């Protein structure tokens, strides 16, 4: 019930069999999983952070752009860009969940079983 089994060096059982994790970590399947997974999350993180920064910098330093009214309405370019931040957040979240369900989960599950068999 305590977390002592999580402590480094705290549990001799894990120290005695470090190879179960290390073997899997070195396996081509794990390397491939890590590459696909990191490729996706790092790219998406760069995209959403960059796009958020663009929005903030425009709102901050380009009032001429964001205050522009669209058509004959009271909607401004800034408001639309802000609403697009909502849209992009929903889209990226959905894309990631789909990607992970489809391309990551089965491989991760197989690797997990491989580790737990050898623990």
């Amino acid at each position, binding site marked *: *019930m*305590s*977390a*002592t*089994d*999580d*402590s*480094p060096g*705290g549990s001799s059982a*894990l*120290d005695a069999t*470090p190879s179960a*994790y*290390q073997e*899997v*970590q070195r396996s081509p399947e*794990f390397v491939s*999983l*890590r590459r696909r*997974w990191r490729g996706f*999350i790092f790219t*998406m*993180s760069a995209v*959403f*952070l960059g796009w*958020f920064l663009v*929005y*903030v*910098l425009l*709102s*901050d330093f380009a*009032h001429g752009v*964001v*205050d522009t009214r669209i058509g004959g*309405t*009271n*909607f*401004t370019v*800034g*408001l639309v860009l*802000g609403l697009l*931040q*909502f849209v992009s*957040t*929903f889209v*990226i*979240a*959905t894309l*990631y*969940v789909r990607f*992970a*369900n489809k391309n990551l*989960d089965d491989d*991760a*599950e197989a*690797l*997990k079983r491989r*580790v*737990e068999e050898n*623990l």
Partner: protein
Amino acid sequence: MSTQIGSPALNIGIFALFVVVTLLIVYRVSRASNTASDYYAAGSSFTGPQNGIAISGDYLSAASFLGIAGAIAVNGYDGFLYSIGFLVAWLTALLLVAELLRNVGRFTMGDVLSFRMRQRPVRAAAAVSTLLVSFFYLLAQMAGAGGLISLLLGVKNTPGTPFDGQSLVIAVVGILMVIYVLYGGMRGTTWVQIIKAGLLVVGAAVMTVWVLGLYGFNLSGLLGSAVENTGKQLLDAGNQYGRTLTTKLDFLSLALALVLGTAGLPHILMRFYTVPTAKEARRSVQWAIWIIGIFYLFTLVIGYGAAALLPRGTLTSANVNDAAPLLAFQIGGTLLLGIIAAIAFATILAVVAGLTITAAASFAHDIYANVMKEGNPEPGMEVKVARRTALVVGIVAIVGGILANGQNIAFLVALAFAVAASANLPTLLYSLFWKRFNTTGALFSIYGGLAICILLIIFSPVVSGGPTSIFGEATDFSIFPLQNPGLVSIPLSFLLGIVGTYIGSREPVNEAKFSEMEVRSMTGAGASAAVDH
């Protein structure tokens, strides 16, 4: 804030109904939660959607609901940044943190940070940071309760008398929260969050549809009316932050703290342990993103609606947090105000309960069980310590809330986000993704981030030298120009993590432990087995 509107008896009645219903539920769901796993993480028995709703309940605090609606009503477009930052931030949590944290840790942020480091110093640092962030957040919620009370319950604060009606209500909120946490543990607290999130979203939806209906569902018409009614250019950028380069940098600083803070908030991180697997953690965030996003779209309408419909001059910088309840009264009269008021109280109560269990878990699990007892506490003692800690946190929250009553709420919340983004997020990301990161690096980024944040805040215009400062305009020791420290403290904390890692590089990298962490974080191996202890 001086005018009292609506019917206090009705407001109290609806709120009391919420309290009775949630207490009954807490009573029904709470088993003898005497194992740590049950008390801190509800036995990891919630589903992704349930946890997603509970996360929304935890995240949509009084600052989100009352604060953002008010910021938009008074500052228009600039207030919109809060909702965008608070929402986009969830992608950091979804992509980089949630699943890994779920797979590696069990109860606290310290579980993950200390996984491959020297246990005692890193756990102590993680707990210090958790307690500080939770404390600032807690104070903001309690202080918010005080302001709301004077408007809604007709209980006025007489200056100079600490034990008046408002203090009494703050104390009642504190005591209720302690009861939830003591008896309900994480399971009870989670159900309180779920009920509260449902009420909050439905309440905001009703107001949104109502306001839009008054304008024939013509959003453009509503926006135009907001400008016309207030005589302010609420659709243009820069009302609050546009005047000087300093305020523009402040806008940037706030944006950075918001977008990077969420994934470092301990009470949010802890919620990922209430689900059984990383996949469910992923579903939790997916649900939370949709609920939180839709809610913030509602606050946009509510904020501009308050600007368009409240008589000119009703809202000032002094009562900006009252925009949503005042609007409810304006459109729906006493009954709608009573409902929105009760929801706002429920919000404060639920968020405070979530913060308390986080602080209690961090103290009992990180400090007591792992630092003081070196990972071998007597059976059952850890949860006992957690319950006692919750009691202490409750008392601190009541006293702090009474003292902080009337303080600037946004400042306290922004401070919590800045500290979370500076001290917690860099340390989390480095330990998950950077193999060479070591104990010294972790201590540098946590303590360095904390120290920089707090120093910059102390010497900022928030504390002294400005018209809205804590010490007023007369006392001026502000040498740092920005209200929010994020722009400086976040990059510096990331840098400190690197510097510390190189300074401590004689400490060998624990290869085996790093392999274990990386494989566990991505596959969930070993995590399920550990839960059965």
